[in-house]
């Protein structure tokens, strides 16, 4: 039972990551490989502010979201106007750099030892220090993120984003400033990833650099591919299915030194097969109805 609740909390947190990546990759066609970096920036910012400086947890969470969004903005400034490959490599590099910062900026992040004793979330003086209580909170958070991004998807703004994804030149020919459309998607997506990171930090109350690796980005990528690019509900469901599957692989009794890379191997092959045979995902995005 405890494990089930724990898994559900992680699914809500990773689900927010899936919604964030789906906004950037699935809806806007922005190939962001630095998801784990934005997630980590949100987690470390909120953890350090609340733990070392006594900032109230809600406020520190918002600061984490803001900093992630800001980094997304700075990264986007020179790269979003270039072809997609640039953004991919720059964000991938960002992933490595942030990890180097978490690992090497020891006075602040305590390096590989990680940050213990991160304060729990509290709402109106009410401490969310048990997993079921936190689950309720993180569920509300994913619901808000979901509704927010769905609203974007169904709005005229979302329609232009899809246009940019399909044919950027065409969207420009219709007089849309595609640069800012993409920038907004990138900034909102980065902020959402930061939110997921903050939630993770205050739920676990301990973080270290190993939680923010490229592998996580890849895992969420697989989830949104399975759920269908641009399909938010599909992305969240697929995240849940993949996480249960991953737990299953963990219980299969293999030594961890083999189990982790084996998982990576299986998921990697799965992603190659899926991209070739079902490039829009298992449950492709539905054409929105505009009434």
């Amino acid at each position, binding site marked *: 039972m405890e494990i089930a609740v724990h898994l559900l909390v992680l699914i809500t947190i990773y689900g927010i990551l899936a919604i964030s990546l789906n906004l950037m990759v699935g809806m806007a066609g922005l190939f962001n490989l630095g998801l784990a970096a934005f997630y980590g920036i949100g987690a470390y910012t909120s953890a350090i502010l609340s733990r070392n400086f006594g900032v109230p947890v809600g406020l520190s969470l918002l600061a984490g979201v803001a900093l992630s969004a800001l980094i997304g903005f700075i990264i986007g400034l020179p790269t979003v106007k270039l*072809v997609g490959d640039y953004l991919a490599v720059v964000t991938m590099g960002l992933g490595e750099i942030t990890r*180097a910062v978490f690992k090497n900026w020891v006075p602040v992040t305590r390096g590989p030892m990680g940050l213990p004793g991160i304060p729990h979330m509290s709402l109106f003086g009410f401490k969310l220090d048990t997993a079921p209580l936190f689950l309720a909170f993180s569920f509300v958070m994913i619901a808000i993120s979901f509704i927010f991004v769905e609203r974007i998807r169904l709005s005229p703004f979302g329609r232009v984003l899809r246009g940019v994804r399909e044919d950027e030149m065409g969207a420009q020919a219709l007089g849309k400033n595609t640069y800012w459309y993409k920038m907004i998607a990138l900034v909102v997506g980065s902020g959402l990833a930061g939110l997921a990171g903050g939630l993770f930090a205050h739920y676990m109350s301990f973080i270290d650099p190993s939680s923010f690796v490229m592998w996580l980005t890849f895992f969420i*990528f697989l989830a949104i591919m399975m759920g269908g690019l641009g399909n938010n509900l599909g992305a969240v469901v697929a995240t849940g299915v993949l996480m249960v599957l991953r737990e299953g692989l963990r219980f299969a009794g293999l030594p961890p030194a083999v189990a982790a*890379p084996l998982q990576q191997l299986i998921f990697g092959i799965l992603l190659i097969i899926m991209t070739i045979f079902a490039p829009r995902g298992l449950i492709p995005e539905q054409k929105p109805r505009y009434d």
Partner: protein
Amino acid sequence: MDIFAQLLVNGLIAGGTYALAAVGYSMVYSILKFINFAHGSIAMVGAYITFFLAIQSLHLPLPAAFFLSMLLTALLGISVERIAYRPLRRAPKLSTLTTAIAVSFVLDAAVMILMGADIKTFSLPVMQGYSIGPVLITPVQIIIIGASFFFMLLLYILLTRTKLGKAIRAVADDPSLAEASGINANVIIAAVFGIGSALAAAAGSLIGLDTNLQPTMGFLITIKAFAAVVLGGLGSVYGAIVGGFIIGIVENLGVWVIPPVWKDTIAYGILILVLFVRPAGLFGSVEQAGVLQQ
């Protein structure tokens, strides 16, 4: 001044290996307009094959292991293109990028399972270094820099003096026109992946000799080689070589002013700086960089 000369030489050594890795990127990009994210991981596999053949099992002489690894890695590169990239050649760019990432994860995982995730070193016998003026250089370092120049010269001859090289340049220039003049583009693309992967194997093995081996080294190679390619100008093979040397030299001189743990972040800093200042790089054209007019 002495330390400057030493760091410069160290930079040249590292730069040669980055240039070798970057060339493969640049060649694939100039033909397919696609960044092969798995290139760094392919270099990593090449390094491990050399290690496996020379140290771990067969104890082949190092040069033999090195060339055999280049051959095997070339076959790996050709197979990856055939299996994972060719079916997607007309698909949206997002799909090819996704499979390339997946391929790199598969390769990393396979090496981790087969060889273990720990750091491996060639641990060659320590040899007496030579002093040239104030600079100390080991025989291994001389081999590294000699080999990188040798392979770059070989590539230059291949591209400019052979029929295959002419065909490669033709396909890069205009694929449909090249096809119309009787060049089989599939064969040329396979050849480019083969050559690029062989050079990547050489780069990976030399980096392994210079430092050590780790299954995750592919990502770092990818970032540094890409920084070199962007600096030199995307799609320009010679630009990639120049970029590789600049990255290697700046990175090593940087150790002078900042703590060595941040060394790997310098290439990234250069990459961001180039994108802000001149996205087309030193020798690239604006169209090649795909800068969309706003």
